[in-house]
């Protein structure tokens, strides 16, 4: 009843092309942003901020990165965690070795480092595709983690490559409380997500999708597949790199290369499968789902079995439910939570008079 576009006329091309063509969407979007920027810091406890909201935001960013590569450009990657590692270690080294390096610049440089590495490992995508490419990105995953452990220069000669992130400070203001870290993360993620949303609607984004749908046909109509694929790798790795730097600075504080292992890559892949392949919104939904599910399972199992549970069953049950859900989602709704959201919106437009 409330969610109708009746009476909203578009009189210019600009209005026709905006991200949220329906007024209710715009209001809703601003309300959601306002809620997360203003209301959440006031009411959320430290645990919620530090253990749930910050990781959800960071993983959303990484999922957007992977979604750009896999969902929009159609290049399956199993190495996103490695690009996160490059971002984290890149930002760390620039903070460490350049005096007075502003944090946000270090973050961007960390992302750029990841982008360069991403392009290097994306080069094989010009010759190979599909599963072959997936294996090629596995090479990135193993090689990068190995290199970060083996060459102590990257971690400033600390044992086994552990780095402790420096204090975040912007213009003299120290971000050391969970609330301030949360707001910083939220700001960065919001800006980058908006940029990504616009990017995928632009010429570049459309050429990615053309390459995804059929690369030979895309080439025939004049899209340069090399530029499209490599730019997808660069942008995707940039997002993953920034996410990795935030992972180190805003979330964990100390990270080691082994923390960015294949499991993390798979986790991010699951986020985009469950959230929705080829959807920015879906990246957020998937990240929230994957972060919250283990916590929810934990609470549920403690409530159900109350201490009588055999040790180890919990983690196995988690594996089973995870795997089962992936298969379930792929069978029932291959387009993920984002598609459910869309269906909900379409239903809402007709409600309460569906005829």
């Amino acid at each position: 009843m409330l969610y109708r576009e009746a009476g909203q006329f578009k009189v210019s091309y600009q209005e026709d092309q905006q991200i949220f063509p329906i007024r209710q969407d715009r209001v809703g979007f601003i309300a959601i942003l306002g809620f997360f920027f203003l209301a959440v810091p006031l009411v959320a406890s430290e645990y919620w901020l530090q253990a749930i909201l910050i990781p959800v935001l960071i993983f959303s960013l990484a999922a957007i990165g992977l979604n750009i590569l896999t969902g929009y450009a159609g290049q399956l990657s199993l190495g996103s965690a490695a690009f996160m590692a490059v971002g984290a270690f890149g930002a760390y080294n620039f903070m460490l070795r350049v005096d007075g390096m502003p944090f946000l610049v270090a973050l961007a440089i960390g992302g750029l480092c990841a982008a360069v590495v991403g392009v290097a490992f994306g080069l094989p995508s010009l010759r190979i595709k599909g599963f072959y490419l997936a294996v090629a990105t596995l090479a990135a995953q193993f090689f990068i983690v190995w290199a970060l452990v083996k060459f102590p220069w990257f971690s400033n000669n600390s044992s086994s490559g552990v780095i402790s992130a420096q204090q975040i400070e912007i213009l003299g203001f120290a971000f050391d409380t969970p609330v301030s870290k949360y707001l910083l993360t939220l700001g960065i993620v919001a800006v980058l997500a908006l940029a990504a949303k616009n990017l995928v609607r632009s010429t570049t984004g459309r050429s990615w999708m053309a390459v995804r749908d059929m690369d030979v046909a895309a080439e025939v109509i004049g899209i340069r597949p090399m530029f499209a694929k490599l730019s997808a790798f660069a942008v995707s790795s940039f997002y993953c790199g920034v996410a990795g730097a935030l992972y180190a600075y805003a979330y964990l504080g100390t990270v080691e290369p082994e923390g960015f292992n294949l499991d993390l890559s798979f986790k991010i892949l699951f986020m985009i499968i469950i959230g929705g392949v080829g959807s920015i919104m879906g990246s957020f939904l998937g990240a929230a789902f994957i972060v919250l599910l283990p916590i929810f399972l934990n609470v549920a199992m403690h409530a159900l079995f109350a201490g009588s549970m055999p040790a180890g069953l919990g983690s196995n049950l988690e594996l089973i439910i995870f795997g089962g859900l992936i298969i379930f989602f792929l069978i029932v709704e291959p387009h993920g939570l984002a598609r459910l959201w869309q269906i909900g919106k379409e239903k809402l437009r007709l409600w309460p008079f569906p005829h």
Partner: protein
Amino acid sequence: MGFFFEVLIGGLLSGVLYSLVALGFVLIYKASGVFNFAQGAMVFFAALTFVGFQEVLPGWTGLDADSNVVFWLAFVLALAAMIVLGILTEKVVLRPLVNQPHITLFMATIGLTFLVEGIAQALWGANVRGLSLGIADEPVEWIMESADILVSKFDLFAATLAGALVASLALFFQYTKVGRALRAVADDHQAALSIGIPLQHIWAIVWAVAGFVALVAGLIWGARSGVQFALTFTALKALPVLILGGFTSVPGAIVGGLIIGASEKLAEVYIGPFVGGGIEGWFPYVLALGFLLIRPEGLFGERHIDRV
């Protein structure tokens, strides 16, 4: 020079194990076009089920734990479990996903990996277990005396077993009715359907055969390094093997496995010291990657032609 050959032979023999895992991939990929990431989890599941039955069977039947009867009974039961797993996979996971893009099927098998790992550990526990096939892991004496090279008896046994497995699979594919149907399906799904080959039965059979291969691989790997979660990582090592050999070629899987096994060991010994060691983890991938740039379809793979 003796040392070189020792490393080479050790690498080749461990390559045989990679080949075994890669073989399971190739079988399923050929028949149904599914890139089965869960093959490693299946190896783990098979080995764990076998060891689990070996542990509980003496209690159920009152037989001596070391007797041959228990061994073969556990083998048959584990094989049955693998066949059930294969058929269930086909029915529950693959059938509803028919005609979906390859990437969707691939991701479904990643989900399957987690599911199978979870079920295996929930059923049998997550402890590392020993597994004995009754072959000692000691050097063969006459080779040591005549050529001064250490070659493990166990490795030779594993290689022989793998060879026998490949030979019997080749015979099965070449000379039985089911095998012929399998080859027809691998060649062209639609043509096979149109002459009355029940596609879904064939897929169930292929998954069961892949389960059997996984069981054999799991037994050998398990006897070598203990039955533990790390067995699932064998799947990751099988991927560069597949790239080298081509996804659709059984001989490719064998040759690719041997090349990967040998080159990673040689690289570790001869290149490793210059860069700090531990390059075994990624060297096969980089090798495979370099190879891809020259020959994208692998050693024995089919050339892929794009049509618009």
